[in-house]
């Protein structure tokens, strides 16, 4: 049973890995893996809640 690995998936924002098992020309099982991490929520701990939006908005431009 061939296993397909797409890593990284492109034309997206960020890093994503897909693993899929193929049987008889169809996908029979799949796994989605986020392969990166962020630390923004830790940065805002202990801060003034009025300025948090400025930090967390940097997670993503959309």
């Amino acid at each position, binding site marked *: 049973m061939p296993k397909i690995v797409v890593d990284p998936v492109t034309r*997206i924002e960020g890093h994503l890995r897909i693993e*899929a098992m193929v049987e008889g020309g169809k*996908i029979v099982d799949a796994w989605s893996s986020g392969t990166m*991490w962020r630390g923004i929520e830790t940065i805002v701990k202990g801060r003034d809640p009025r300025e948090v939006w400025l930090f967390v*908005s940097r997670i993503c431009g959309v």
Partner: protein
Amino acid sequence: MHSTSSVRAVENALGIVIPDNARIIRNLINAIQYIQDHVIHFYHLHALDWVDVMSALKADPVKTASLAQSISNWYNSSPTHFRAVQNKLKAFVESGQLGLFASGYWGHPAYKLPPEANLMAVAHYLEALDWQKDVIRMQALLGAKNPHPQTYLVGGMSIPVDPNSQNAINAGSLAFMKDIARKSLDFVSQVYIPDLLAVASFYKEWASIGGGVRNYISVGEFQNDNISNTTNCWLPGGFIRNRDLTKLEPVDHMKITEDVARAWYKYGDGDDKAKHPWDGETTPNYTGPKPPYKSLRTDQKYSWVKAIRYDGLPTEVGPLSRMLVAYVAGHTRVREVVDMVLKKLGVGLNALFSTLGRTAARGIETLLIAEMMPNWIDELAGKMKAGDLKIHADDKWDPSKWPKLARGYGFHEAPRGFLGHWVVIMDGVVQNYQCVVPGGWNSSPRDAAGQRGPYEEALIGTPIAYPDKPVEILRTIHSFDPCMACAIHLVDSGHNPIINVKVR
């Protein structure tokens, strides 16, 4: 739009009600973000899963013009224009440097469009690149820049509204926004929607592929009143269970949980214990293979994304969920446009539960928002005319007016789906903060009960012609518009991860 969720979470915690002008400006910033983002997604991130760029070289520009003119009144549809685009593409290919069109699966049998449709789509791909940089100037006007607008403020916005000032939102700004709203609606209604329908008509089998999980959530967006997490939104909120389109459940944020049974984290009281975001913990625990590796240990932990669940169920977020929820809620215009699209494609309502349905829902939503945008500009103009220039509620700005302990959450529908922030404020500072984001809902791994996440479930049954060229996987995954930067949880800075996974 993490700014929106964040200020709403703090406003919710502190009981702050924002002024009308702030609500309207937030609606406008979000509206233009949706419009630009969805068009970019369709043309620049998703279209090449359906459009064979190399086939466009074989097209007859005259026939391409006839095709374009038969589906739209868009001005830029002459044989001369399409010939120019084709020549540009030819020069590009002959130079041997495909640039943004490199590494496609060109010639794959899953591509079904005739050369003329491919050429039309390539022309619009290039046109959309130009268009998007113009329309997003509206966000730069209201937000001071894009991305990451700078004019948010807990309690409202910081951009002044004053018809008598050159340094504020004035009559000139309103005219500028009206012009952008017109350009937005023109492009969406005359290019995006006709292209979407034309492309979809060649790929109807994808209306029964890629459905995935059976639960959908939207928290509603484009507020009609000024309270955080109000249910009074232009696009309504709700939860659809098991694809039952006869019933909408109200959203209860306490039903949202995350577990880390299959994600590289450790919970103090057991990785399979689902936690509400207010009690969220994020201790990294990488147990994956040492890179470079061929395969993840998918029977164990295998992702940095936690398993987000609603009432214990894997749940899809995004345009499809919003359109389904609005449809069930009886939103008149959503029903009209959804029914029109289904009729044109000759498919039933169940076709929405698919890869094609997800992509169509995004286009439908873009059209609706582009139609609606002038109304919000008029609403703002009306306030200014009436002398209401208030932009910020400062009655609770001073921390001495806050309770010792306050907990809040901020609901927001970002273009890619439900984005929630949860905050715990203690003695005037943030004690805990959690973001539960669209990419996290959709890309989530299996949970403690072994239930697959939405991407995983959507891939089951997808046909694969050539395992080494899996364009079919890209179609379904791209239909969700993944945003993985958002999806991954934090790592406590005190704990360094054992391994930084290398992306090949």
